[in-house]
């Protein structure tokens, strides 16, 4: 396990969660989670299945809102502003906090329209030239432009799995978000495609704040600066990635990263 990811750089806090609790009906999925997400860093959320890491990720852009019977308690702030405040517009919040999902889910439209969709609905582009430029820039940033520049008007669903996932990343960054949430973005991909996405995440870090849920501890170690370990709805431990993987303070973290459970 290489730990090329440096220690946390002590950047300012972008998102802050305080005493976050999530309930699905009567069942409590998250218990009093407090976590800071630092700007321009990659924060990895790890833990065994059903530990609440995906649930926590989805509270950060209120994707849990649409789940029937889901309640969120506590406070989550984006740039010190409570995102669960009634005055917050959820549509705008999701434009600022973008998301990439576990399974690549491009729209059944052309590659161009996939990327242009976000900017169009938010009115970020007015002319064809502006749209062209945003599409090109986003695809370049997602490292996909070279591969697809000659077939921008072919369907996005015709790409390979790894390309589809990079298309989804391009689509997310086309809206110019501040934070990108990634829910196990590589779990459906082969190792080569995974390596490309990981490289991409490392590049994107300079412009965006990234929170990534991953099942792979190696991946967390490779791409993240900070790691949070969840277990049974508790946030057990959070700290610099290097520290979590070399010198965890909690016994459960130790057990998980050494493969005794999970």
């Amino acid at each position, binding site marked *: 396990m290489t730990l090329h990811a440096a220690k946390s750089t002590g950047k300012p806090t972008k998102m802050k969660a305080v005493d976050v609790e999530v309930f699905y009906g009567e069942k409590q999925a998250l218990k009093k989670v407090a976590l800071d997400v630092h700007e321009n860093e990659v924060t990895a959320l790890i833990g065994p299945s059903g530990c609440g890491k995906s649930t926590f990720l989805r509270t950060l*852009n209120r*994707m849990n809102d*649409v789940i*029937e019977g889901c309640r969120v308690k506590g406070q989550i702030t984006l740039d010190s502003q409570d995102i669960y405040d009634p005055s917050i517009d959820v*549509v*705008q*919040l*999701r*434009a600022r906090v*973008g*998301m*990439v*999902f576990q*399974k690549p*889910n*491009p*729209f*059944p439209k052309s590659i161009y329209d996939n990327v242009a*969709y*976000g900017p169009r*609905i*938010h009115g970020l582009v007015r002319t064809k030239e502006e749209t062209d430029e945003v599409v090109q820039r986003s695809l370049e940033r997602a490292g996909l432009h070279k591969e697809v520049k000659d077939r921008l008007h072919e*369907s996005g*669903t015709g790409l390979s799995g790894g390309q589809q996932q990079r298309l*989804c990343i391009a*689509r*997310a960054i086309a*809206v110019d978000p501040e934070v990108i949430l990634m829910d196990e973005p590589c779990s459906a991909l082969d190792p080569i495609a995974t390596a490309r996405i990981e490289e991409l995440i490392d590049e994107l870090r300079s412009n965006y704040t990234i929170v990534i849920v991953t099942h792979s501890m190696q991946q967390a170690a490779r791409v993240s600066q900070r790691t949070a370990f969840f277990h049974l709805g508790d946030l057990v431990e959070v700290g610099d990635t290097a520290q979590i993987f070399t010198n965890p303070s909690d016994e459960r973290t130790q057990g998980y990263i050494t493969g005794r459970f999970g």
Partner: protein
Amino acid sequence: MTDLVDRRTGAHTSDDAAKRLAKRYASERNFRAFGMGAVLFALAALLLLLYTIISDGYKAFVTTNVTVTAQISPELADPGGKREVNDLRRGDYINIARQAIRADLPEVTARQDLRELYGLLSDGASVMIRDRVLRDPSLIGQSITLKVPVSSDVDMFNKGKIVESDIAGGNARVTPKQLGYYKQLQEKGLISTDFNTWFLSSGDSRQPELAGVWGSMVGSILTLAITLALAFPLGVASAVYLEEFAPKNKWTDLIEVNINNLAAVPSIVFGLLGLAVFLQFFGLPRSAPLAGGVVLALMSLPIIIIASRAALRAVPPSIRQAAMGLGASRIQVVTHHVLPLAMPGILTGTILSLAHALGETAPLLMIGMVAFIVDTPHSVTDAATVLPVQIYLWADSPERGFVEKTSAAIMVLLAFLLAMNAVAIFLRKKFERKW
């Protein structure tokens, strides 16, 4: 780990095992044979049905004509002498037609015999001559040669549906004398069997040889247009609301149960509802496609809602999440992504429910669309009938000529249905997209 299973020796290799395997294959073979038998039986029943309908009905698409040369004398056609349309309409074309057939068989002179000869002609003969004159008044004073229909039972004789023994025994409305005249005309080469333009271009008639399906086809089209215009937007909107926006609570559960039950309500109940509400209370015109369309729309709504909800549910949630994750509002998620992807399913469901409505008779009987209507409707408030009701009416008529008309109208209805299903398949292919 290896000692977890106490493996019996030869569990899968003994004779017993071979027997068990043979039994499994046998049951599979039996099942397949049973399935194929069921399919073959269904196919045979369908073919038999089509055969009876087509063998009865195809002859209705041709009709027996007699060629006559009609003298359009000014005294008979235009008693006013001013060539005005209203005057021309009142001309004595029956007399012109009679003189024309008389000219074909000049040897018939006795008054009694002439009456029998005139009976060979259909009432349509004078109508055809009148229409020709109205279209072109300059024909007055000239003579025109045209083919006019013979009366229904003569037509039936020509088609072999009535045989000579029927006529001799007095079991038909043709007398042996008329039959003799018919044979004389045939010898002169004046009888011909031609494509029946009346059948596809006119409305109902008491005379089988003049009855057509055009009036009821237009009635069906107008009725279905009303049904589509009401049921499609209402059904899709309800489905979208229930599936994408409505909270899941006991009220929406109740609504769902009710919709499912409504889909199973016998259609005649919708007819009674239409009679009580749309005709009595709102005063919609009786027998009109407007009222019929509204009733059929009510009947189709639950089916469209159920089909649309199923289509919406089949859109993968990942597409909704992707759009929501980009900051699309709920209505944008629905209109930009979910609805277009669900459209093939929604359209198929809609067209199938419309096809169902097209074949519906019972509710329309309740609102008076069963009336005898000769004119082709021109608007949705005109009195009209629809194809299945027309079939019902003809099937109920005692004249022999209506037997083949009934089957032929069923063929037209089936063609209509096939066309609608073809449109459904076409739309499905056109809008189908992969994800």
